[in-house]
């Protein structure tokens, strides 16, 4: 695990992002996150088109975020996002980070990501609603990873929290 953020060692790129952000002042962290939001790339049309399916919507996200998982032939996933609120910069920044650092990575470590990843990236000054929405994006990614693992190897479905799989909307991965 990454000592500071409790991240699985297999997710080195994500750990690097978290470590980089944690060393910045508040204003530099914000500028960096804005830069990440500006680099956000919406889900490609080959994966999903508007109107995006409700099953892909992150329920607790006020920025109207959608999460999509595209299978790779090696069994991993590419993660894609859409954020319908043009002012949803934090959702775009988080989507950009998750897409860049989790796509093509082993699925089991994704399930082991801690719930406070949002705080590690954004700091502690988020509203409750904003925190819930961003945490919902991470949970949707984890659900897609769990579904993929389960499809590849039914025995692997015993990994992690079974409630997650049974209660979240199905992903069209």
């Amino acid at each position, binding site marked *: 695990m990454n000592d500071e953020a409790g991240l699985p060692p297999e997710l080195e790129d994500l750990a690097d992002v978290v470590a980089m952000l944690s060393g910045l002042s508040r204003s530099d962290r914000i*500028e960096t996150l804005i830069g990440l939001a500006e680099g956000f790339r919406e889900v490609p049309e080959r994966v999903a088109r508007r109107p995006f399916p409700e099953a892909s919507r992150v329920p607790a996200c006020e920025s109207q975020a959608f999460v999509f998982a595209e299978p790779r032939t090696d069994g991993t996933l590419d993660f894609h996002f859409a954020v319908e609120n043009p002012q949803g910069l934090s959702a775009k920044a988080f989507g950009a980070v998750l897409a860049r650092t989790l796509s093509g990575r082993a699925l089991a470590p994704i399930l082991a990501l801690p719930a406070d990843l949002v705080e590690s990236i954004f700091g502690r000054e988020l509203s409750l609603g904003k925190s819930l929405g961003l945490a919902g994006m991470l949970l949707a990614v984890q659900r897609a990873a769990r579904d993929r693992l389960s499809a590849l190897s039914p025995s692997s479905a015993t990994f992690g929290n079974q409630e*997650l799989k049974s209660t*979240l909307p199905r992903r069209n991965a």
Partner: protein
Amino acid sequence: MSDPAARGYVHPEVLVSTDWVAEHQSDPGVRLVESNEDPLVYPSGHLKGAVEIDWARDLNDPLRRDYLDRAAFEALMRRNGIGQDTTVVLYGDKNNWWSCYAFWIFQLFGHRNARIMDGGRLKWTTEGRDLVRDVPSFPASGYNAPERDDSKIRAFRDEVLAHVAAGLPLVDVRSPEEFSGERMHMPAYPNEGALRGGHIPGAKSIPWARAIVPETGEFRSASELSRIYFEEQQLPRESDIVAYCRIGERSSHSWFVLTYLLGHPSVRNYDGSWTEWGNLVGVPIER
């Protein structure tokens, strides 16, 4: 949509249009104040001359769950160059949800000369108007504020209990899923900050965003708002109303609508809201 002054509001003077703001961006008697939920939004670009007031860092007590006190409010106004006579124009993201929250807190300190820019950031940017990244600074003012007055527009837990016991009306402005408690029963989702789901008995469910035209972020006309609040939901036009949500920010938006746009004489915002009520031992809850 039409000019705010032509929509039949009881107090149209609390709203200014984007046109008005564009004409007054350099007016020394006007201070533009952006207040958002998302901390990335203001630094990414804002109206020229606008300062930022952040709900967490600027408006809340850093230790207790409460708002800033008189000394902190005075310091906030002074460092932003706001005098008692300055016309403060608030605007922000989320259809002015957070700017209405700031507006409500300004009223706890009696700053009457405050306005909301109708449509907020959404309308300004949709109209293709300029944003800048320069953070302005202004000479400090000598702002003197009265003590914060929580007695008229703020409701506390025991007052809400008495309000419920008296059968008086409440407005729950959260989403239908929060009102029903459904979201609390989705185990894989983050905790909503409360141990129990549902709503305060007797509350009407009127989600805050019903007051907004989604395409433009503008407030609906007085006749449309009256139809929603007074006719469809049968809220009384006179007796005390308590509005609440999760922490009091969305309900400050509905408080603004009821108080200024519809002219209701007695609306209080219960900022303890569901994160307090849903954690209290022994209080009544409906689902």
